[in-house]
């Protein structure tokens, strides 16, 4: 069922030369290749349809969309018939009406009018009413259809499938194939026995269905319907376009509101990033925003061992401000700092870093990009000149070769993965560089030509080996390099990478990847003609993360794969606004727009606007803040929307640092691990409760629009404003649009960005300024941002984290589709149906050697600490490698990760930890205690106290 008021045009858009025809006497001009159905809909002469929808290719099965074409015999289906110049089409006639009535009557015999929970949203019942069909003459006739006797499938927590309402139009099957690419659905049986089946005719939850909702949206009846819509029992009164708050794809969604509550999230068909698609998280897992765990009242306490006390906003803000002032007076200006949120909007992030720089008077501000893509910023800035990816997502449709390095897009960026799989099904070749056999290596109609299954920690050796092949086999695009890159740096790099130490044969022993596989992959990538690289945290979260990003840029430049569609270097940013938080100057060394704090002209501009003196020295990064806290020189923090105690490595170290603070101010929507060390809790707001913008991995700035009022009474930006005013630095904004205006005034890459322009264009990819007034989909066209691209020598330096007899396995980490990051949001939704705990993946050989069976508890120990996880035995991981996710605090994944980090940015080396795994009888005592007791919250205590008193 489509979004409210959506006008379904029937078949997808085409892109040919203009064609003019007549439809019911009206002149219509459309691109060649357009179906008559779509042309008629564009002319507001919609042709009735059932099996067609504009996200899917034509199918031509329902026989409802028939039309008459002058000079042609019969009644062709308008969905399968393309327009032609001079064509004259009639969409209405007595003959057509009679044919449609006949077909509809047959459908109604299986799906009586009034069957659907809401007839007004059932396309079949709507058409039946339009054509005056109430009862069918064929109703009650004996049929052998087995599907009408099947029980309703309620297994999926978000939607149900009622076979009785299904008209077997195949829209759901085709949506699962064409839009999502999972191929979980099929039509089983023939004729009247035909029915939709999930996998091997299993309940949806047990099948291969990934719950993206594409089938539900495609369904023309109530057969597949959201449970929330059924429960709402009324049509939505409001539909608000906003942007998803989960991953870096930044899907555009329509929030439908019924009686003041969100009843459904539907992908926005006009969303340029997601092209009308969504995943289980954005589509369905929005309930966390109104979960009972939401903290809605400000809280303070003198000591972290005290109970929380509910207070007013004024008292909480006043207390926080007075503590920060006291600390600075006692320990110095730089004894406090702040962390911006990659979950909050650009405007909110900008204000937090402004508060730190202007109100605190220090540059001790950082962001969670520190622990994920900070090497991307460093590496791409140095080589290409800008700290961001080079393409938009649709560029993948023009790629001939796709290389995915250290990422599993089907799990972490599923909507983009669907687009990538579409291109792969249409003939693009695939190279995967990953220690795991990620799903993309082999799945429905997709198979990697090369899987470089490297040992964790050997990325740079591999990228150098790929480059070695390119350079020594004459695969360099010499003209491109000569025109666009620095000659000296290229020659230096070329000499370095051609050294035999970088040959595939030499690297085989280090990486575990056979030389011929490396050579094959390099030749394929170099041959293109369009080759694109997509990478994730498996690149950046290493001691050589920045080096690897530079190595990737080197390879792309050497092969001429930058500066046009279908190529590029695209970091798959993890969070909804991690790109934005970096853009907004959240790093301690850079103002908004990636300009160093020591740059006098930039600093003068900010000082002039902000009317305050600003520091010209870099501030502390997050790991440095922890060190300074432990040595007693850093005593206060303001953390907005980040759970450092769960997400940062070496948990013991982090919690020791947080414990030593005298004032920790948390601004968040739930109690979390970090809040256990806080003195002030300022209740935050979810993406549904505020206006602003997010910037996704494509540099695409999209609107976030308020759907419900903030549960705590204030949006996050309003809280920061109040805190700043309480500290004596005035901030005065009436709407986030004013904050964006200030950002635009201060940031050359944002000068053309306004809310009006975003509304007009739908979204804007920065840079957006006089040179690029409608934004920049593709970067480095013609020349690189820094002028000439610069090559960097990227010598492989092995990580100091090595296996030993004590720790013989290498642990790497990642994400799973249904959960998100530390799970603060998704753990509070029905997504736990798919993934209710983090598990350790271990190869059968390693498991057998340790006497471990599937489902056993195992102790996982590193030099940093230990934890206990339940095991999953799988050959997705290679022998010697284990893998886990980190979505549940009970798993303690970061108890065992170490302090190792990227040399340039301190991005933690999450992906390489030497561990030992042994079978144990049960979880650790702290895990059992945690599972037995919910997190302490005033709301929970009130419930308990009430219960006790009853």
């Amino acid at each position, binding site marked *: 069922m489509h979004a409210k008021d959506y006008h379904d045009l029937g078949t997808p858009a085409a892109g040919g030369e203009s064609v003019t025809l007549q439809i019911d006497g009206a002149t219509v001009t459309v691109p060649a290749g357009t179906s008559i159905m779509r042309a008629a809909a564009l002319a507001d002469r919609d042709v009735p349809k059932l099996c067609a929808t504009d996200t899917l290719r034509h199918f031509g099965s329902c026989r409802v969309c028939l039309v008459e074409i002058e000079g042609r015999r019969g009644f062709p289906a308008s969905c399968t018939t393309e327009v032609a110049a001079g064509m004259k089409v009639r969409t209405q006639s007595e003959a057509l009406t009679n044919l449609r009535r006949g077909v509809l009557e047959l459908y109604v015999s299986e799906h009586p009018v009034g069957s659907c929970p809401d007839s007004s949203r059932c396309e079949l019942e709507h058409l039946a009413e339009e054509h005056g069909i109430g009862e069918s003459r064929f109703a009650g006739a004996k049929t052998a259809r087995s599907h009408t006797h099947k029980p309703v499938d309620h297994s999926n927590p978000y939607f149900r499938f009622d076979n009785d309402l299904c008209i077997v139009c195949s829209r759901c099957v085709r949506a699962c194939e064409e839009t999502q690419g999972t191929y979980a659905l099929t039509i089983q049986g023939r004729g009247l026995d035909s029915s939709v089946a999930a996998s091997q005719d299993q309940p949806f939850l047990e099948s291969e269905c990934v719950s993206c909702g594409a089938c539900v949206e495609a369904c023309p009846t109530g057969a597949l319907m959201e449970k929330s819509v059924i429960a709402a029992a009324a049509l939505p009164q409001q539909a608000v376009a906003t942007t998803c708050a989960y991953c870096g794809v930044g899907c555009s969604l329509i929030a439908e509101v019924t009686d003041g509550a969100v009843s459904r999230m539907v992908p926005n068909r006009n969303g340029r990033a997601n092209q009308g698609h969504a995943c289980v998280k954005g589509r369905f897992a929005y309930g966390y925003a109104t979960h009972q765990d939401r903290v809605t009242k400000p809280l303070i306490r003198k000591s972290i061992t005290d109970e929380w006390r509910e207070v007013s906003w004024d008292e909480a803000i006043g207390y926080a401000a007075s503590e920060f002032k006291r600390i600075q007076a006692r320990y110095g200006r*730089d004894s406090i700092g702040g962390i911006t949120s990659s979950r909050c909007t650009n405007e909110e992030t900008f204000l937090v870093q402004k508060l730190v720089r202007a109100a605190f008077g220090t*540059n*001790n501000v950082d962001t969670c990009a520190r622990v994920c893509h900070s090497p991307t910023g460093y590496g791409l800035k140095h080589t290409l000149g800008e700290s961001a990816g080079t393409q938009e997502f649709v560029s993948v449709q023009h790629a001939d070769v796709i290389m995915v390095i250290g990422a599993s897009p089907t799990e972490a960026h599923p909507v983009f993965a669907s687009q990538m799989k579409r291109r792969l099904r249409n003939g693009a070749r695939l190279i995967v560089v990953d220690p795991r056999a990620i799903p993309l290596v082999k799945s429905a109609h997709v198979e990697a030509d090369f899987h470089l299954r490297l040992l964790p920690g050997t990325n740079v050796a591999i990228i150098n080996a790929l480059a070695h092949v390119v350079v020594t086999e004459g695969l360099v695009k010499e003209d491109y390099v000569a025109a666009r890159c620095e000659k000296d740096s290229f020659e*230096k790099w070329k000499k*370095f990478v051609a050294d035999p130490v970088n040959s595939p044969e030499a690297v085989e022993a280090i990486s575990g990847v056979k030389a011929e596989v490396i050579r094959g992959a390099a030749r394929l990538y170099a041959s293109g003609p369009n080759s694109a690289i997509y990478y994730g945290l498996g690149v950046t979260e290493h*001691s*050589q993360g*920045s*080096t690897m990003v530079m190595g990737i840029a080197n390879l792309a430049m050497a092969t001429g794969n930058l500066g046009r569609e279908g190529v590029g270097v695209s970091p798959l940013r993890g969070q909804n606004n991690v790109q934005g938080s970096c853009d907004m100057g959240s790093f*301690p*060394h850079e103002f908004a727009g990636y300009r*160093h704090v*020591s740059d006098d002209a930039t600093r003068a501009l900010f000082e002039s606007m902000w009317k305050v003196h600003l520091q010209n*020295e*870099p*501030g*502390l*990064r997050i790991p*440095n803040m922890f060190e*300074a806290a432990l040595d007693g*020189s850093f005593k206060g923090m303001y953390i907005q929307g980040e759970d450092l105690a769960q997400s940062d490595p070496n948990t013991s170290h982090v919690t020791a640092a947080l414990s030593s603070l005298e004032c920790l101010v948390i601004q968040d929507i739930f109690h979390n691990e970090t809040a256990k060390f806080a003195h002030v809790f300022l209740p935050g707001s979810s993406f549904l409760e505020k206006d602003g913008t997010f910037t996704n991995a494509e540099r695409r700035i999209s609107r976030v629009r308020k759907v419900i009022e903030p549960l705590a009474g204030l949006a996050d930006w309003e809280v920061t404003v109040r805190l700043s005013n309480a500290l004596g630095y005035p901030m005065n904004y009436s709407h986030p649009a004013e904050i964006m205006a200030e950002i635009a005034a201060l940031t050359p890459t944002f000068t053309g960005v306004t809310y009006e322009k975003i509304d007009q264009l739908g979204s804007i990819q920065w840079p957006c300024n006089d040179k690029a007034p409608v934004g920049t989909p593709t970067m480095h066209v013609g020349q690189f941002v820094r002028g000439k691209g610069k090559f*960097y*020598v*990227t*010598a492989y*330096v092995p990580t100091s984290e090595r296996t030993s007899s004590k720790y013989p396995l290498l642990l790497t980490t990642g994400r799973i589709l249904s959960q998100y990051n530390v799970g603060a949001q998704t753990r509070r939704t029905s997504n736990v149906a798919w993934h209710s705990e983090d598990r350790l993946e271990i190869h059968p050989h390693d498991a057998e050697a340790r006497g471990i069976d599937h489902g056993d508890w195992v102790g996982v120990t590193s030099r940093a600490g230990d934890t206990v996880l339940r095991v999953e035995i799988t050959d997705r991981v290679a022998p010697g490698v284990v893998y886990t996710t980190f979505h549940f605090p009970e798993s303690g994944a970061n108890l065992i990760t170490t302090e190792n*980090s990227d*040399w*340039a*940015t*301190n991005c933690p080396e999450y992906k390489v930890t030497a561990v030992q795994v042994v079978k144990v009888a049960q979880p650790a005592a702290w895990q059992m205690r945690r599972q037995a007791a919910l997190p302490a919250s005033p709301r929970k205590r009130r419930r308990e106290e009430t219960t006790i008193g009853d």
Partner: protein
Amino acid sequence: MANDIAAFFDGESDKALAAEGVRFHISRFWEPRMRREIIAHVQKGGAGLSATARSGIEKLAPVA
């Protein structure tokens, strides 16, 4: 960490350029008290620092 930074710049065959790379990186990204500490460490002998790291740190401007 200083040694890790130096290890990257050791890819540069010109040792002076490598040292300058270390100096530039530390001056751009290290907070003043961290620079003060590493300078003091070098002034006391710089135990544990690689040659490139030491050379780069010696080129750092004093921190007030």
